[in-house]
């Protein structure tokens, strides 16, 4: 058996949008992310992306206070981690070097 490959950190375009928004706003709910993305994120897929990013360690989430009354579900609030911030800055600077138009 060969040695397992080291984990390669990747950032998909959707993950990039999420990180960019979270770094700008610090903390956001899933729906706020959808609204702030101006159509780049969809409410049907945003939580799948957020779940994947949490597994990768780019973002962390906490539960908000549950709403008053029975049966109400607390909302989940998302924030970038240190790794997520480093990833975003590395990805942005890499993109600026490769594609000059990106820097404008």
């Amino acid at each position, binding site marked *: 058996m060969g040695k397992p490959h080291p984990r390669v950190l990747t950032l998909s375009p959707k993950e990039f949008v999420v990180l960019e928004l979270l770094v700008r706003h610090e903390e956001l709910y*899933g729906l706020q992310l959808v609204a702030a993305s101006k159509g780049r994120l969809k409410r*049907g*897929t945003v939580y*799948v992306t957020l*779940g994947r990013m949490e597994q990768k360690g780019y973002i962390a989430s906490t539960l908000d206070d549950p709403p008053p*009354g029975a*049966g109400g579900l607390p*909302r989940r609030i998302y924030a970038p981690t240190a790794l997520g911030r480093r990833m975003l800055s590395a990805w942005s600077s890499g993109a600026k070097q490769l594609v000059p138009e990106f820097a404008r």
Partner: protein
Amino acid sequence: MRRPGGWLRKTAARFYSARTMERLIDPVLADLQVEYENAVHEGRKWERRSIWCASHIAFFKVVAVHAAGRVAGILRDLTGEDRRTLMRTFGCGTAVMLLGTVILAAVPFRNVVLRPDPSSAKLALYLIPQALPISIPVGLLFGILWGLGRVTASRRSRLLVLLVAATLSVTSFTMLAWIVPAANQAFRRQAAMIVGVSVVGRPPMKGMNELTLDELGNLLESDAHQPVALFRVPHDIRPLAVNYHTRWALACASFVLSLFSLALTSRRRHGSVMLGLAGCMAIFGYYVIMFTARDLGLDGTLPAVAAAWAPNAVFLILSVAVMKVGSRRSPTLSANLRSLPS
């Protein structure tokens, strides 16, 4: 005020792990509740409805995307043994399905075509759709018994087989609802031309099996019986009702019979003769129940829905009973689903 999403959450909790519920399902439903409540408090009646619809669509989209991710994960994690088992299952299933399709298409073909000519090839093509909803479940049943019955198959392989069965059920439904009626009517038209009974400009009248599911549904729903082109509505609409519900039930046969054969093969390994015998008995039993219940439905002893769903109900009960008996040795389906990585 009753919060929306409670039923969806309860249903999802049966199938998903606590982590998936926490990270994927609950956030979607929490959004639905917050948005919905805000709209109710502010008296935005129409927005409330659109939020309800958009959130439900989002929920099912999340479920679909998650399921696709899981299937990709299962496919990625398949071992060499899993691949061999699945190849055997689907290979045998496809062979039986093709054989069944040929037999089921050949019988009516031989009744109509006395001398093969170029136009009769078209006829044979029209007969394939009506054979598939029967040959698919038969093929799946024998494929699973042959592929999984002689080895100790992994949970991944079993789940993948069940997913394929569900997909084939949806395919069968599409066939039964729209493709089979269109193909049947095309067959009638072509056959009338071949045997020379066609009157120019007048296509042959439709029978029940030539009506689409929508047309059947419309006939059953309205008391006035909206006219359907080329179809004379009978006085007794009971056969129409039985036909309508049988199409839904037959579409589910692939899934139900797969579940039954998975239950049979979940406990221990069997010999080839035993498996062949079990398969033949299951198919024979299913069709005996189907035709007996249909007759009882046609003469009014049973309601049309009960008559149509009787074979599926019997085989579902049998599957659960077989699983219960073997539950000490093998975990339940929901436990299998939970045990898979998210």
